[in-house]
Structures are given as structure tokens and as C-alpha cells.
């Protein structure tokens, strides 16, 4: 798909996506559409963010400089009766097409090649003759990578704790993905579908991002609103296009958050649209199974029982991975992150905090810090004495809150109790036995 079209699509969904405006501007700049580029830069500037301003300024500078260079190149090329497109690249030179080069070299030019072993003509005569300088065109970087502007790639190193989970994912997914040869030899597929399930707020999305980071793949998060359309058949087409785009950008990770929404059990709903979407999803997943290389489809859900059973069969989301509530190490890390940007008074013992927040999800911990901050603000308003968040504030909030994961665990507990004959939820059963 054309990049400009992609950015425009992104902006259609969210006009306040300033990063998309910026990328669009960059793309227009590369294509020399000055007016469009300026408009898009102006839109990107609407975000009141110094970083963005800096990037836009850099872009604008490049725009004017590129324009000047272009003008120079055009002028110079014109002198010799050539079109600017005919100005050759360094690559062409290194491939030794010196006859062609002869047509574009300037008499006064000096050839500046850093390495002698470039395979160029070492002939002295040739050397004398070909003292060339390569013209710099406006299109220095032909490709604008979204990765240049996106936040840094997340990997497992960014996920605190959860070593068991990381090890499982590495063995089940990352290794097969990275060395598919061994697996194909044994008729094992390296891509396919993975279903991450677990209590809400425990970082399933982050883990999926980290998985993509680990395998060095493009990450495509998909939201239901990107698929649904009121017109007949368009939603199914949108879903198909998403898979197409991901296939075209392999290695890629396609991430469906809340997969129980898109892949809701057809036994539980009579909605025609829902049924046809699940059918399309099944077809797409099936085709991935046939053509698995370097495409992972990850689904995440709090309610795996709501996902259509057909989606959990072999060939679709056939690997189910339980993402448990953060362990002690992870909780310490989350506290550290969440408290990092707030004023803290006295010693805050992360060890104790992590100890006292067993079964708390990442979102719960964030909430604890939020509540503690609110408490401190209230106290400052009352007393007029400014202070930071103390250990006592945090402990008080912890004493007043309960982990939100318990409800989920109680549901799944009964599920395992009454019907885990297929062993689908063995991981969660083990977790409950171990920690509850």
C-alpha cells in the first residue's frame, strides 16, 4: 500500500495523530510536494510538544536545503543537457559503469571514493580521466521508516520479572520464529497464532510488543474500530486488508487486543455481522497456517472462554499462553517506574511494596500510586505544607485496596474445577495451586 495512503488512513481515524501528520509531511517532502508537506508540518506543529517542534524544524530545514540542492543539481544537469534523474548514484559507480559515468562527470570534479578496493578502475589514465564528484540529489533517503519516529523497540529486557513466562515464550515462539529451518525440518511451523490470556491489566499488550521486539518484526496492533464498517461486506474486507498489509511487511506481528470481541463465540451470539467476521478471521488464520513464515498473529484476552472454540483449534490460535499477574520482581519494577516521575519523600522500600502487593496487576499498582499521589495533594491543600509521596501513604493505600485479579482468578478457578478435561487451562491451574 502507498505510504501516503496509509498515513492518510491513520489520520482519517484520528485527526489528532500528530506523529502521522509528521510522517505524512516527511513523505511529501521526499516526493517534493512542497505545499502538501508544509501543510502537514503545520498540522504536526499543532501538537504542543517541544520534541515534535524540533523534529518539524529539522524537517523544514531539510525541505529548504533539499530544495536548494535540488535546484543546484537541476541547474548543473541542465548545463549538460541532462535530466536530474539521470544523475547517477554512488551505487552505480561502484558497479563500474564508467562509460555511463563519463556522461555525467564534470570536468572539474574529483572522485572521492574512500576505499581503494571499491573495484573501480585503478588504471591511472582512467583515474586521471575520471576525477569525478557525485552529485547529491534531493532524495538522500528514499525511504521514510516509521521506526525512526516510533518509540524505541520494546524487548523482553524491558519486561521486569516474569522469567518463567518469558522462557516459555522464547521456547514456544521466538526460537521457532528466529530459526525456522530446524523446525521446518521436523515439519513444525514457526509462525501462526498465539493467544495470550490472563487477568486484566497484567501487561498482555506489552508482552506482545516485546515479543515483536524480540523477533525483530513489524508490530501491527489492530483495534476493532479499524475493522467495523456499517456497509455490507466492508468490515470483512477491512479485516482481509489488515492481514494483507501484515503479510506484505513480513516479518510481522499482527496483534489483536481483546480478541474475544472480534472472535466472539458464535455459540453465544446470533449477530450476522459477528458471525461473518469470525468466519473471515478463521479463513485468514487458516491461510497463515499454510503460509506461516515470519508472520505471527497474537490475540490477547481476559476472557478466553468467550473466544470462538474454532479459533482455539490447531492451525489458528493453537498456542495458549497464560500471562499471570506480575511477580515480585515485576511489581518492584512497576513501582519504580510509576514512582520515578513523582516527588517521593524519605525512603521508599520497593521490596516491601512488592511484598505487600501479591496478585496486584500492573494497573492496580498504577492505581495505588495514583491514589497515594491524590492523598498527598489533598494533604498539601489542607495543610499548605508541600511534601512528597511517602512509604506510609503507599502502605495505607495498599491496605485499603484489593487486587482486581482475584475476581478473574475466582472465575477461572471454577472453570478449571468443572471442566479442564482438555487441559486447556493447565497453566492457570498450576498458577492457582502454586500461589493461592
Amino acid at each position, binding site marked *: 500500500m502507498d505510504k501516503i495512503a496509509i498515513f492518510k488512513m491513520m489520520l482519517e481515524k484520528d485527526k489528532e495523530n500528530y506523529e502521522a501528520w509528521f510522517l505524512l509531511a516527511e513523505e511529501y517532502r521526499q516526493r517534493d510536494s512542497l505545499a502538501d508537506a508544509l501543510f502537514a508540518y503545520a498540522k504536526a506543529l499543532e501538537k504542543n510538544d517541544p520534541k515534535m517542534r524540533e523534529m518539524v524544524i529539522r524537517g523544514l530545514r531539510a525541505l529548504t536545503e533539499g530544495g536548494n540542492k535540488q535546484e543546484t543539481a537541476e541547474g548543473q544537469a541542465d548545463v549538460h543537457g541532462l535530466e536530474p534523474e539521470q544523475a547517477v548514484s554512488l551505487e552505480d559507480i561502484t558497479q563500474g559503469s564508467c562509460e555511463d559515468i563519463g556522461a555525467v562527470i564534470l570536468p572539474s570534479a574529483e572522485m572521492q571514493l574512500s576505499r581503494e578496493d571499491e573495484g573501480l578502475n585503478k588504471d591511472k589514465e582512467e583515474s586521471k580521466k575520471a576525477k569525478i564528484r557525485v552529485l547529491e540529489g534531493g532524495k538522500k533517503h528514499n525511504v521514510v521508516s516509521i521506526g525512526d519516529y516510533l518509540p524505541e523497540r520494546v524487548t523482553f529486557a524491558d519486561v521486569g520479572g516474569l522469567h518463567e513466562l518469558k522462557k516459555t515464550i522464547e521456547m514456544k515462539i521466538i526460537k521457532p520464529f528466529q530459526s525456522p529451518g530446524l523446525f521446518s525440518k521436523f515439519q513444525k511451523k514457526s509462525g501462526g497464532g498465539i493467544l495470550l490470556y490472563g487477568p486484566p491489566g497484567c501487561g498482555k499488550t506489552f508482552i506482545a510488543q516485546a515479543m515483536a521486539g524480540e523477533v525483530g518484526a513489524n508490530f501491527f496492533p489492530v483495534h476493532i474500530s479499524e475493522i467495523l464498517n456499517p456497509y455490507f461486506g466492508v468490515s470483512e474486507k477491512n479485516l482481509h486488508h489488515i492481514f494483507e498489509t501484515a503479510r506484505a511487511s513480513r516479518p510481522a506481528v499482527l496483534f489483536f487486543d481483546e480478541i474475544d*470481541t472480534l472472535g466472539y463465540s458464535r455459540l453465544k451470539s446470533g449477530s450476522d455481522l459477528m458471525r461473518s467476521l469470525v468466519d473471515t478471521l478463521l479463513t485468514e488464520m487458516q491461510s497463515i497456517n499454510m503460509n506461516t513464515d515470519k508472520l505471527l498473529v497474537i490475540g490477547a484476552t481476559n476472557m478466553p472462554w468467550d473466544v470462538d472454540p474454532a479459533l482455539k483449534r490447531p492451525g489458528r490460535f493453537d498456542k495458549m499462553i497464560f500471562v499471570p499477574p506480575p511477580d515480585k520482581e515485576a511489581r518492584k519494577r512497576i513501582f519504580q517506574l510509576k514512582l520515578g516521575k513523582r516527588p517521593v519523600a524519605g525512603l521508599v522500600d520497593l521490596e516491601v511494596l512488592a511484598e505487600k502487593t501479591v496478585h496486584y496487576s500492573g494497573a492496580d499498582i498504577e492505581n495505588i500510586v495514583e491514589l497515594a499521589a491524590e492523598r498527598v495533594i489533598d494533604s498539601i491543600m489542607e495543610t499548605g505544607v508541600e511534601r512528597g509521596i511517602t512509604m506510609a501513604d503507599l502502605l495505607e493505600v495498599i491496605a485499603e485496596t484489593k487486587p482486581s485479579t482475584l475476581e478473574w482468578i475466582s472465575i477461572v478457578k471454577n472453570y478449571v474445577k468443572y471442566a479442564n478435561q482438555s487441559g486447556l487451562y493447565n497453566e492457570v491451574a498450576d498458577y492457582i495451586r502454586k500461589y493461592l
Partner: protein
Amino acid sequence: MDVTAFIDRELAVVDYLFSVDKYEEAVPHLQNILQQNPVHPQALFFLALVYYGREQFEETRRLCVDALVNGFDKEGAYGVIAAAYEKEYRYPAAEEAYLQGLQANPNSAVLHADYARLMMVTGFWDKARALLNKAMELEPTNQNVINAMIDFSFAEMDEKKQREAIQSLMENGSDEIKKIVKLSLYHHFKGDYKQAREYAVQAFLMDPANRNLLALVEGCDYALHPLFLPRRLIGKLGGGAVVFLAIFTVLVLLAALNLDVILAIVFYSFVALVLYNWMVAPVLYHLIVRGKDPWTK
């Protein structure tokens, strides 16, 4: 994208999310619609349903009234207003809403069936029957109507009607869970707890977050436990009252025949049976089941 297209798109998302029971997830999309058009009747109605799910019934009714004022379908809006009153046990107000809805749409089978349910709960069983018959006349294949009919036949203990209604649900219903639950209840009321449990477990597996389904499974487990064998036997003999009467008669006869030793044995055995059934067995069950539960170890 123009406003109408935007609203249509958001409504499609909301419609979908409602069809998969994700009501809370629909809220941001509803807010998007209402930002563009604060009196969008369908969005107001959908939002009313969200508030109904949150058990905020006052707000539910307010939004339904807003939807009505802005031209929303009266059948749906009055139905939800009535249901919100019912949840607060304000039955006369609920009846008034149903009647207003029926006045606006006299051919609504769903409103007839829902009004019949209200009449069932409030003790007007003949009226409930008549309303259900009318609903069946209007739309015999409507799932809400069939479900209400099944519930009525369960309450009436009319097995023939139960079978007919369940058959109809199997043919016309699209919600598998509801079908299985009704089958489970059918067997439960018949005293066939084994079959009832099988269906209840099937339904529970599809919707483990549903506490009512868990209670149904546990109820079947309770009834099927060997500890309650005497209780089941008493049930098969005609119930506690019949057994009590029989034992009482036997005791009188034994007393009349001056068979004091046998009389004492029968009397104390009966007392022991009563104590076992109503006190010992439930306590033992609680202890054993808790002991067996792997999660309580």
C-alpha cells in the same frame, strides 16, 4: 469524513459491541456520537442500556425518555423503562410503562411477553397466561416470547407445555447458552439432576463468569451427592410430608399394638433420619466438598 458517515461508522461499532455483550467497551464510541449529535436517539438508547447494565436505573430511564423525545422506537424504550422499574421492585410504575408501550405498539410480542413476566411475578397468573397467549399469537418464533413461555410452563408445572416450548426454542433460538440452560432447568424440575448437571456444566463452560450458572451446577452437585441419598428417596416416595404421615401412622399403630420396643426403634430411627437429613448431611457435605476442593488445600 462527514458527520453522518462518522456517526454511522461509530454506530456500527456500537452495534457490534452490543451483539457480543461488550457494553462498557461501547461507551467511548457512544460518547463520540453524542459529541457530534447530543440528541441522537439510538445512541441515547444504547447508552441507557449501558446504564441498565451498571444497575443505574434512574439514569437508564432518563436516557430512555430522552431517546423517546427524540423519536426513538417506543417499543424498545418503554420496554427498558419498565424493566428498570422492575429491577427496583417498583412494579406499578413498570406496569404503567408496559401499558404505554403497548398503547403505542399494540402488536409488540416482546412487550406482551415482558408484561406477562411482570404479571407472573406479581401474582396475576391468569393475566400472565392470557398475555403470553397473545404474544404467541403475534410472534410465535420470537426467542423472548418462547423463553417467557418456557418459564411460565415451568411455573405451572405443565410438562406437556414445557416440552412444546423447549422444542420451539431449539428450533428458533439462536442463543445456545439459553437453550442449554432451559434444558438443564427442565431436567432439574423433573428431578433428573444428573442430566440437569450435564447441561448446566455445558452452559457454564460457555459463560463461566455467570454466577447463576455456577449456582445451577452446584445445586445439581448438591442434590446428586451420595450424602443426600435418603433425601432423594424421601422425595421419590412423595416428599417429607408423606413420609412423616406414614411414620406417624406406623407409630400410632405400634402404640395401639403395645409393641413398645419396636415403637421406640422406629421413633428414634425417624428422629435420627430427620436430624441426618436436615443437619448432619449438609454439614458433612460442606466439610467434604471443601476438603475435596483443590483450591482450598
